[in-house]
């Protein structure tokens, strides 16, 4: 069995860029070894009858000032150019590694001094460092190797520092240190293997830079000295005769660019191969009519949202939302629960018209405040949604623009949709921040998101939704990223907004207890469909779908026996790319039989308006489900 490491490296060769870069690099390396052995004599042969001639059949790229063949000289120079570059890279990597590992090798205090020096050195461009060291080590090939090596070192030291800092935080490295493992052995056995991969990738790219830098130093006359020659030396010689004989300068120049590019591209190809290892997602087409349940009639004026047979599809036929129907009235609070991947967030985004290409939303009916969203002209729709449809997202840390003041981000809603001026809009924003109980709102409005705590940000986000006069707030996991006490405050705030302004709330959550406490009605989603729709008050006793009851059983409460393992729902959620025939939950359901595996149960409503999609709803209903029962399907 190939180790994961090997297959990763092989993966690099599967991309077209990776293959061409590897081929190019192999050719350059081969030439570097072979050319000096094969053609040194041709390259050195002086022909005084053919001085500074242009390209001919005999001399493909002409001759230089002593009548020597330029083409062969460029080939032979590969050896010295590449060899010296690799040597310099090796010096740079080693020195950098030692400097970067200084905190481990020398102890904390000396390590800090070294780190500070490295941080200053790294701010200077490599070429300046190389010039500095070239002065110290003297003009010539060996001086240039050391100069470029040391010039590369700070960057590698910095890289090593970062990597080592990451690794030494790991438990087993800390354990090894406590166990009294020597510093050098700690470095060699635990740290190096972990940082080797990024170091190799960067060393490859650095070898390209070293090659270019060496050409630069030699070109300036500070590197390889005559009679030895590398590409930079040839370039400097050729540049003098650029008017009469351009090939003598262009040929070594091209060689430098090609070789440098080979190292760079190969390095980047490995970096990509190492970084991105996700297998290509295979989509499977499914064409099957979904059973559609009619939404409960809600044709009154208080209708906020009416959704029928909502579907979200992605190219390749994946349908993470497969025919969802529900309705919301003014002031109503409805929760959607389900595991991740059940399609609850996509349902919310689809309703909000925020599904991005290439995703596609279709519905038999999608009305907001009685207006068919799909048929409205763009401008009208944006105006309608902008003023009366509010969204609260899961992660308040990332949902605000970090470069803009909070007040400004609220104000722009009113500037856009209510035609308010800057000043007025900001006043409105401060007023709204006060309404969501952000203390010192006027001062807070001038702050940036990173100056707000998570809970405060979520309040501000709700305030942003209240810049207009919302009829609906869609809150997608609004409390998941917050700690428990703050969670309660945010939910209480949403509740009070609902009560005060008769706003409907659609709360998306994976946590059935939150939804049960907060909402009047609960929609349970599984594999892109609603499997049960019932009043929150009916939970847990009157839940009929086995999935709903499994969700409830998985919640530990005060009566949960501590000795027993926590209940879990066995199996894994359905992959939207491969939804099985029949009931999607069948594979994880203790009650599943042939009928379940053969046909998907329709979502049927009973006399009270409760809906459920299960062939055995009447059998399983009313009986509390035990944790063991949940685990039966494993």
């Amino acid at each position: 069995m190939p180790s994961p490491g090997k297959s990763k490296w092989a993966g690099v060769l599967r991309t077209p860029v990776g293959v061409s870069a590897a081929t190019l690099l192999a050719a350059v390396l081969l030439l570097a070894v072979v050319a000096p052995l094969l053609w040194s004599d041709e390259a050195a042969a002086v022909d005084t009858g053919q001085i500074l001639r242009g390209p001919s059949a005999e001399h493909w790229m002409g001759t230089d000032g002593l009548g020597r063949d330029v083409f062969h000289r460029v080939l032979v120079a590969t050896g010295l150019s590449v060899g010296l570059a690799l040597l310099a890279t090796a010096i740079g990597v080693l020195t950098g590694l030692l400097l970067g590992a200084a905190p481990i090798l020398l102890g904390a205090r000396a390590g800090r001094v070294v780190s500070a020096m490295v941080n200053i050195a790294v701010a200077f461009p490599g070429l300046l460092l190389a010039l500095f060291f070239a002065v110290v080590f003297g003009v010539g090939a060996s001086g240039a190797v050391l100069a470029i090596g040391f010039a590369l070192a700070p960057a590698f030291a910095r890289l090593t520092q970062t990597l080592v800092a990451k690794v030494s935080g790991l438990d087993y490295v800390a354990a090894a240190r406590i166990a009294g493992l020597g510093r050098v052995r700690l470095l060699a056995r635990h740290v190096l293997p972990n940082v080797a991969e990024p170091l190799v990738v960067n060393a490859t790219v650095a070898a390209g830079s070293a090659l270019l830098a060496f050409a630069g130093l030699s070109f300036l006359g500070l590197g390889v000295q005559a009679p030895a020659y590398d590409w930079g030396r040839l370039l400097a010689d050729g540049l003098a005769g650029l008017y009469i004989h351009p090939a003598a300068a262009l040929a070594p120049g091209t060689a430098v660019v090609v070789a440098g590019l080979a190292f760079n591209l190969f390095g980047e190809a490995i970096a990509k191969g190492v970084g991105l290892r996700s297998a290509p997602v295979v989509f499977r087409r499914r064409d099957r009519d979904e059973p559609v349940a009619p939404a409960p009639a809600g044709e009154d004026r208080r209708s906020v949202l009416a959704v029928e047979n909502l579907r979200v599809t992605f190219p390749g036929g994946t349908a993470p939302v497969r025919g969802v129907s529900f309705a919301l009235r003014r002031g109503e609070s409805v929760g959607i629960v389900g595991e991740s991947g059940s399609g609850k967030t996509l349902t919310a985004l689809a309703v909000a018209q925020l599904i991005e290409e290439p995703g596609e939303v279709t519905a038999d009916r999608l009305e907001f405040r009685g207006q068919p969203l799909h048929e409205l002209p763009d401008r009208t729709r944006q105006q309608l949604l902008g003023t009366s449809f509010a969204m609260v997202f899961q992660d308040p840390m990332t949902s605000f623009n970090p470069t803009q003041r909070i007040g400004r981000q609220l104000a722009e809603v009113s500037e856009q949709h209510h035609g308010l001026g800057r000043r007025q809009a900001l006043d409105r924003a401060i007023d709204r921040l006060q309404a969501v109980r952000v203390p010192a709102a006027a001062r807070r409005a001038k702050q940036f998101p990173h100056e707000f705590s998570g809970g405060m940000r979520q309040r501000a986000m709700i305030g942003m939704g209240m810049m207009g006069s919302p009829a609906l707030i869609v809150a997608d996991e609004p409390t998941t990223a917050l700690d428990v006490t703050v969670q309660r405050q945010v939910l209480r705030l949403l509740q009070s907004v609902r009560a005060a302004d008769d706003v409907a709330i659609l709360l998306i959550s994976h946590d059935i207890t939150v939804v049960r406490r907060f909402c009047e009605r609960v929609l349970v989603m599984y594999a892109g469909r609603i499997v049960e729709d019932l009043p929150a008050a009916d939970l847990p006793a009157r839940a009929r779908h086995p999935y709903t009851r499994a969700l409830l059983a998985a919640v530990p409460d005060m009566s949960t026996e501590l000795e027993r393992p926590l209940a879990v729902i066995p199996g894994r959620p359905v992959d939207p790319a491969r939804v099985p025939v029949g009931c999607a939950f069948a594979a994880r359901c203790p009650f599943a039989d042939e009928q379940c595996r053969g046909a998907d149960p329709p979502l049927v409503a009973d006399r009270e308006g409760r809906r459920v999609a299960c062939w055995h709803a009447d059998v399983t209903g009313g009986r509390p489900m035990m944790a063991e029962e949940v685990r039966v399907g494993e």
Partner: protein
Amino acid sequence: MTALLSGARTLRGLAGNTWLHFAARRLVRLLISVWVLVTAAFLMIHLIPGDPVRAALGLTASPELVAERRAALGHDEPLWLQYVHYLGGLFSGDAGTSVTSGLPVSRVIGDRLPATVELAGFAFVVAVVAVVVAVPLGVAMAVLTRGGRRRRTELSFTSTSVVLGAVPEFLLAVGLVYVFGVRLGWVPVAGRSGLVSYALPVLALAAGPAAVLARLLRVETLAVLHADYIRTARAKRLPGRIVYLRHALPNAVTATITVGGLLLGAMVAGTVLVENVFAWPGLGTTIVESILAKDYPLVQGIVLVYGTGVLLVNLAVDIALALLDPRSTIKES
């Protein structure tokens, strides 16, 4: 007195403590960096194996001459005293005397510096203009090619910018000289005479950074377009132009400025090579001449000038970042 106090308080309230902290921290870092630079320049000569004076004068020089010159340069004094003299000299504007020309180093630098500053300045302006042009280009490329659309457009854009970014400026310079100087004869191939002579060196310096920045901007914009706050902006039903210009652009630009600062620092160093291709009468040709002639006081002086230039560029970048992205004022780096 109370008025003064309350004034100070409002000032602090206005600027915010984070800004003061940032400014103080940044200043300390600049001073330490300058000190390290000066010390390194001083030590450079003493790190050279053998006697720098003997090296400068050559093997044929008589021992008496070497001893005399050593004494004149103060090389017989203990190291710490030389260091003190060196620092004192720098503070009074005396950076030593050029060995080859006998002129004060400060005067040689003063003569040559303007040509280099002009070159780097022009290149910087051109690169900035190019990037300002490249910003919409990069963003447009990101918008056009996101989600794997228009593979061919993306490939040609990426490969062009990769190749342009990988060709070092002095090789680009040689190519430009060949095409525009030798083949087409539009511009002089060397020297500094008239505005036309600036065209090629400036282009050689600016092309690479501009290409790299355009590519980076595309990648950054792609990442930013997937950010949560862009979804928030869309949820506010803002028109596309506001979403892209007010919410996507400033965030995509911060990373670009960071890298742009590094490239700009590298550009200062790149002038050394480009000046030598074009025989430009600036600091770059001078430093190479003085290294080859072992004129160490002059090398020292020029190293200080380049180093300070890079430090100032870094400072400017940090300030620009702080203005654009307020988070960077609190980031510890």
